């Protein structure tokens, strides 16, 4: 990650050594061909596996689960208030203030991991949705509930969510104020106003499902996660629509099983997934020597922009990177459609397969952020005692010194390698399962997979290459 103000947000990872890079690349290629050859030789009459649900738990939508949800939501709202307060009135040194660490590490990386490895926890604790729902309930006691929300036009899809997500990526990677507590606090306030207004106009669930970048992003990641909540008849419950009176069911499934459920992917949502993947990768790219050279060359060549040259160069880089990912994926979808003998349109292909790329992104999130999360996250121990930087010591941990050796370089290398290889294997297998479901002819299904396989190998190699680069500020 590019350097934040005064030592906040730095990553101290050593580049992956060449030997391990070669082993990783070799594993990726060998395993890819192994999976394809198993698929080719498998029994021709075998059917595509049904969604592997491991366990079902009835959760009564009665008192107990509602109470737990309420407590969790109260915590989330309290945390939000504390973070905003710390940002505005606290010490403005990034490492002494709760806001930057809480937002970028505990919330953004933390909930990404929670979503990917546990489930859609954000949809339960989202403080903006929770406070809006509480207000709605209080108001409905006095007068009849509003029915006059503005309808969300179908053609708009999730494009506002895409725009907001790109804006968020810009704020995370390029914005100069991203480590300044007061700027973050005002950003949070602005986002609250935007969200509540949007919910007021269009309805809470509609806004969350189409325009809230975080509900969308964490939602996509949580499709990989092992848990999900369904209402009766096995219909997926978009938990933002958790209505009272229905019987909910918590299911446990194999990781990644949720990614083959692609009936409801709209064209714009498929673009959202690709944009999300591209911004995650661009984050890593920005810290490589190669990107530094591009920056320097453009810096020298464009004196007309003056002091904001770097910001402009990086912004253009981010947008070009997103567009390139979208274009490449579109090309692959077209190739899949061709390979299937045009039994599938490129549009349908892109929607059917886009989620199968998610495991590669999750693997990269692990490789790129795990040590960062474990090392910089230790700041939270100190900040819990002194969130405002006023010299308090509420819990006695105000002088805790983060241990930068908590995970060593070897642990990071091996974890990253295993994660990337496993993510790739998961992606290739899931794409194969999706293909089997869509095409009855097994050979056709496999042939349609070749473009996707090439894309996945390229994407995984890019991830491997990035973690083998020395980090440059």
């Amino acid at each position, binding site marked *: 990650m590019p*350097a934040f103000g*005064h*030592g906040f947000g*730095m990553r*101290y*990872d*050593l*580049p992956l050594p060449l030997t391990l890079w070669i082993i990783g690349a070799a594993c990726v290629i060998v395993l890819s061909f192994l999976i394809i050859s198993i698929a080719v030789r498998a029994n021709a009459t075998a059917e595509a596996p049904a969604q592997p649900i491991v366990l079902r738990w009835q959760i009564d939508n009665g008192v107990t689960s509602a109470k737990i949800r309420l407590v969790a939501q109260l915590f989330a709202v309290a945390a939000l208030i504390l973070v905003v307060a710390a940002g505005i009135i606290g010490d403005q040194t990034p490492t002494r203030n709760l806001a930057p660490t809480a937002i970028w590490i505990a919330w953004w990386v933390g909930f990404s991991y929670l979503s990917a490895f546990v489930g859609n926890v954000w949809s339960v604790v989202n403080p903006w949705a929770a406070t809006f729902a509480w207000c709605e309930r209080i108001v409905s006691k006095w007068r009849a509930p509003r029915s006059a929300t503005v309808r969300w036009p179908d053609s708009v899809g999730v494009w506002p969510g895409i725009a907001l997500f790109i804006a968020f990526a810009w704020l995370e990677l390029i914005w100069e104020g991203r480590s300044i507590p007061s700027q973050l606090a005002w950003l949070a306030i602005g986002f609250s106003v935007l969200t509540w207004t949007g919910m007021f106009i269009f309805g809470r669930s509609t806004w969350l499902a189409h325009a809230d970048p975080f509900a969308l992003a964490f939602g996509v990641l949580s499709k990989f996660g092992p848990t999900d909540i369904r209402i009766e008849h096995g219909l997926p419950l978009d938990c933002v629509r958790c209505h009272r009176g229905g019987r909910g069911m918590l299911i446990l499934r194999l990781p990644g099983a949720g990614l083959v459920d692609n009936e409801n992917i709209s064209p714009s949502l498929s673009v959202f997934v690709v944009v999300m993947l591209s911004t995650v990768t661009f984050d890593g790219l920005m810290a490589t020597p190669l990107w530094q050279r591009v920056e320097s060359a453009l810096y020298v060549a464009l004196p007309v922009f003056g002091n904001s040259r*770097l910001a402009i160069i990086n912004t253009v880089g981010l947008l070009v990177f997103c567009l390139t990912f979208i274009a490449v994926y579109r090309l692959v979808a077209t190739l899949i459609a061709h390979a299937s003998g045009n039994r599938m349109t490129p549009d349908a292909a892109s929607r059917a397969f886009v989620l199968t790329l998610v495991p590669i992104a999750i693997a990269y999130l692990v490789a790129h952020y795990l040590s960062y999360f474990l090392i910089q996250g230790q700041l939270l121990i100190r900040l819990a005692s002194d969130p405002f930087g006023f010299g308090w010591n509420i819990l006695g941990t105000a002088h805790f*010194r983060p*241990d*930068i*050796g908590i995970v*060593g*370089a*070897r642990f990071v290398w091996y974890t990253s390698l295993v994660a990337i290889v496993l993510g790739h294997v998961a992606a290739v297998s899931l794409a194969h399962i999706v293909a089997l479901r869509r095409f009855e002819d097994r050979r056709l299904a496999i042939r349609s997979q070749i473009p996707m396989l090439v894309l996945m190998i390229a994407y995984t190699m890019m991830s491997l290459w990035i973690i083998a680069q*020395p*980090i*440059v*500020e």
Partner: protein
Amino acid sequence: MGAGTRFRYAGRALLIAALLGTAIANAHAEDRVFALEIHSEAPTAKPQVLEVSQNDKVVIRVSSDKPVQVHLHGYDIESDVVPNVVASLRFTATATGRFPIEIHSREPLEQRPLAYLEVRP
């Protein structure tokens, strides 16, 4: 030689090898000294990479023609550097990783780090 005896000898050999290995690894903990120069509050050239092994005892000597502050991130060691006096950062490189060494002067932006310290496992 029975199988049991073989196992016992193999076990002892492994134990000795492990002990030797640890001893050798630790015995290789060296003293490393580096020198960095700062002119006009900026590094002299492209950032150097100072490579050391884990547990080495490191000394980084910094000289500058103007008063600046040098900060080794991660280990969080800071030092003021004044003209004509060589400042030393001394520490044992217990944690692995790649740590930037930055110059903090009055204008903070757009600076390349002075050097990177790479502690290899």
